[in-house]
């Protein structure tokens, strides 16, 4: 038997902890089932805490012509981390699209998510300055805050991140 001491005066921390646990649980379940997970206004905060790093999160749409190149480049970089890194792909318009895992590029993601809820609020929770352009990439280094990038990374940028 174990107990968790929740902070008495820090409800936000408690919320983040609960969110992270929820994300972990649904992540395990979804990966086992091979399906995408929901990405709502709480997911990003939890993801920053829990994703194995280095991690790259690609926000994409099903009609984004530039997203495959971005995903392919990051997938190749992740292979060089020998399984330690994480490539997550978040599909903004995928909530009603079946078989996202069969998409040749989305299939390269270690974790696949779909937006669930108010798109503008979800974007704001990730980065208030993100205007919906895709691919929108969040790079989470081994430690520290995420860096955001619009469009596929250049070879130099990828090398710098995976170094």
């Amino acid at each position, binding site marked *: 038997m174990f107990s*968790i001491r*929740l902070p*008495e005066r820090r*409800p*936000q921390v*408690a*919320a983040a*902890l*609960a*969110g992270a*646990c*929820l994300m*972990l*649980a*649904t992540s*395990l*379940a*979804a990966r*086992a*089932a*091979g*399906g*995408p*997970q*929901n990405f709502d206004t709480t997911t990003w905060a939890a993801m920053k805490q829990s994703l194995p790093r280095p991690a790259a999160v690609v926000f994409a*749409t*099903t*009609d*984004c*012509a*530039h997203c495959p190149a971005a995903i392919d480049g990051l997938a190749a970089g992740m292979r060089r981390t020998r399984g330690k890194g994480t490539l997550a792909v978040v599909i903004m*318009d995928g*909530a*009603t*699209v*079946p078989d*996202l895992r069969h*998409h040749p590029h989305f299939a390269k993601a270690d974790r*696949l*998510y*779909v937006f*669930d*809820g*108010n*798109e*503008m*609020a979800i*974007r*704001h929770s990730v980065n*208030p*300055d993100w*205007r*919906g*352009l*895709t*691919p*929108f990439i969040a790079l989470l280094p081994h430690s520290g805050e995420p860096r955001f990038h*619009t*469009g*596929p990374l250049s070879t130099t940028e990828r090398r710098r991140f995976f170094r």
Partner: protein
Amino acid sequence: MPKLSRRTALFALALALGIGAGFAHENGNGHAAPPGAAGKKRSALAVSAAISPAGALWLIGLDASGQLYTQTSDDLGHHWQAPRTLDIGGDTVSAEGENRPKIAFGADGNVVIAYTRPLSRPYTGEIRMLRSVDGGERFSAPATVHRDRQLITHRFESIAFDRRGVLHTVWIDKRDQAAAGKAGYRGAAIYRNESRDGGASFGPDIKLADHSCECCRIALAPAPGGGMAAFWRHVFAPEIRDHAFAVLGTEAAAPVRATEDDWTLAACPHHGPAIAVAERGGYHAVWFGERAGQAAVRYGRLGNDGRPAGAPLDIPDAYAEHADIAARDGMLVIAWRSFDGMQTRLRAWVSNDDGAHFRLRDLASSAEENDYPRLLSTPAGIRVLWRTTSATHVLDPAS
């Protein structure tokens, strides 16, 4: 920010662990249904609207079952008739963001509805159209409007009847990109065709321009000479995502560069432009772009030839998105949505002197999921149509 009590947090934690453990056990073989939202039933918020010759407001969109439907209102949204599902023979329909079903009214009872049907491979689609000759009482079975049938992109269609009754269909097409293969091709292309019998038959596919942006809507407006003008996001060399303008039927000339933001971007903006005819000649245009590092929705005047006429103005809202523009009876309206961290605000810039001066209006706000605002030119004046999860709002931007 929402606060969570200790008890609620504990409950969420327990629920999370419980759900996770359950799935971990039951789905260990990887064949059970996923817990994610993909494939779940929900109404697509993306609709289009048009005013019929009789003055009725018609909506076209998808219901929670993914069925194409129309819904009409005889009093500009105060009361709505029951939705009517259309038989499209099992087609799936794109209805998200920049690409959604459209409806257009012609003369003599002609009504057409167009949509993109996604095909078997990602990024592919074909443009389908239903036709009515009795004012929308009955519609034909859908038919594909373009002659090219490759398994490639024919998507993001726009439709409009011109004053001569010619139906114009304009779309984003990747046949030239496919033909270029490994040689490479910048962006996609704009293709179009014409129907001179209200959508019963179509002329050949005509290339309007090489090198369009790949996934932004195309704006159409009546040209002063009686034809149709198009305004779209273009990829100027080497990778500048500004906008181009052309009057349909003038394909011999290169499209005109209509905006000069010089936005170099190797990504998809998902922000198409809008255009309206100016009373004193030329056009009013609104678009999203980045100029000297400043992202904004901008308003500008275009000459009759589509070239910029004067410096553009930034819309006074740093978070403005997906603006639309309409002009009627001396009034010019630009409407957009912006998110302030808590809710989406529906806002408008209203001018009574053809764009010389504007006043800012806050029209509505909602914490719900919501669609892009669309402007309608109605017999009663310009109206803003804004769909949220719980309602379809039709608002007078001037009152």
